[in-house]
């Protein structure tokens, strides 16, 4: 589904991605993990063409992200930080995006889907409010609905449950699992490991600009001989720390 080949990206002198290659299979839930600033958002933005890689290629279906834009009709993206035109109301925002997607998506179906999600996340009373007046969690719900409403084949969620209340969290996860059953591909980042345990088929662990680990959550637990994902990842990182410490000069004196 998504083929990422040798992606490199620097911001000024900061080397964020140092040759990331990975293929994301169709119909799977893939969790991109890693500490703050490890480049998860950057990698995701490369897939969307928001960040332009210094080198490397990303192939989605038959399209190379570098010189195509129409592939985005098949992507539902939830950004980590939602940026909306603040002077629009929620309804105006939905209508505008529908208008922009006209010709690429079934708008009647999207409208129906939106109606359903609006009641699932219980934001009927905010539809005519301006975006600037919404609470953080309500904004996140709008963000979620925008990413889900066009029924794309590929979902990309950047920390989707941040700010959501527990009920909405559960409903969101239920929705994701439903999408997975429908055969959709899902890429998500998160720092909440229970979510990974619940949903992910595969983990991609980014560290210092490279893929440090790739495999299923169960494999990781087995490999590190830990019962929980949290401890398995902690152990994975400990080894890395030791490695770095041993390389420090003067360590043995």
């Amino acid at each position, binding site marked *: 589904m998504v083929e990422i080949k040798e992606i490199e990206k620097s*911001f000024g002198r900061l080397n964020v991605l140092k040759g990331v290659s990975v293929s994301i299979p169709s119909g799977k839930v893939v969790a991109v993990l890693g500490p703050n600033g490890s480049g998860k958002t950057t990698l995701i*933005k490369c897939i*969307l*063409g*928001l*960040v*332009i890689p210094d080198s490397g290629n990303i192939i989605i279906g038959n399209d190379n992200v570098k010189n195509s*834009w*129409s*592939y*985005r*009709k098949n*992507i539902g*993206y939830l*950004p980590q930080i939602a*940026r*909306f*035109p*603040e002077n629009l109301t929620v309804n105006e925002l939905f209508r*505008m*995006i529908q*208008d*922009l*997607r006209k010709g*690429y998506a079934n708008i009647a179906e999207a409208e129906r889907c939106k109606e359903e999600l609006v009641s699932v996340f219980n934001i009927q009373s905010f539809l005519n409010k301006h975006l600037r007046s919404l609470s953080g969690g309500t904004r996140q719900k709008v963000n979620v609905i925008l990413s889900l409403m066009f029924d794309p084949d590929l979902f990309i969620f950047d920390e989707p449950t941040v700010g959501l209340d527990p009920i909405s969290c559960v409903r969101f996860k239920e929705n994701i699992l439903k999408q997975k059953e429908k055969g959709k591909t899902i890429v998500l980042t998160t720092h909440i490991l229970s979510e990974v345990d619940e949903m992910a088929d595969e983990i991609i662990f980014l560290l210092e600009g490279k893929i440090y680990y790739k495999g299923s959550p169960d494999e990781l637990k087995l490999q590190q001989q830990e019962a929980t994902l949290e401890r398995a990842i902690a152990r994975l990182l400990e080894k890395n720390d030791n490695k770095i410490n041993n390389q420090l000069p003067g360590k043995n004196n």
Partner: protein
Amino acid sequence: MFKILKYSFYDVLRSRWTVLYFLFFLVSTFALLYFSGNMSKGIVSLMNVSLTIIPLISTIFGVMHYYNSREFVELLLSQPIKRSDIFIGQYLGLSFSLSLSFVAGTIIPFIAYGIFVSSEVWNFSLLIFTGAILSFIFVGLAFLISILNENKIKGFGIAILMWLCMAVVYDGLILMVFISFNDYPLEKAAVLMVNLNPIDLSRIMILLKLDISALMGYTAAVFNQYFGTTNGMIMSLLSLLGWIVFPVLLFNFFAKRKDF
């Protein structure tokens, strides 16, 4: 692209500032026509106002619009829309609505004073035309400066500085050059210098068309030799178009490579 153009066009047109801009031209054009009493003088006065105000306001609106629509742009970038369509659509939307405000604001008073049955109709058309072109030029320059400066305050400062240079400092510079190199034949240099500033270029084009170049003395005679000919006119038009095309192409070049 057309959809983006439409969205930003209406977005800008609805804003208070555009209405104010329109009203400014409406009121001042009526006032200028009333006080100068004759249409030819009215056109010259309006020209002096327009050649200062249009670049200034287009620059300010351009910078403001660029920074204020960053959220909108980021939202659009994750939709199935071509990158350059988003940016060029925004540029055209803003430029068209500013031109429209200017054209509507000046044309209404002139119609009321009967411009269409007067002999000045072509001179007036040229003024309207260059005014619209200047809007496109300075919105383009403002967008270019904005995209090169992540920092809003810095972008704003540089843009105003650019306006100041072109509208005020440049004229002084030309004058100084003429005075200090009085003994040398400077015709070619003068023509070149005028071409390097779209505001001066517009002024010369209009003044020569108005045929009051006699008022301007020796320099005007020089300019008349170049700009007064058909070739000169075509060259100046191309030069003005270049002032639109190159900054916008450069802006598009940077927009394609920018990370969001």
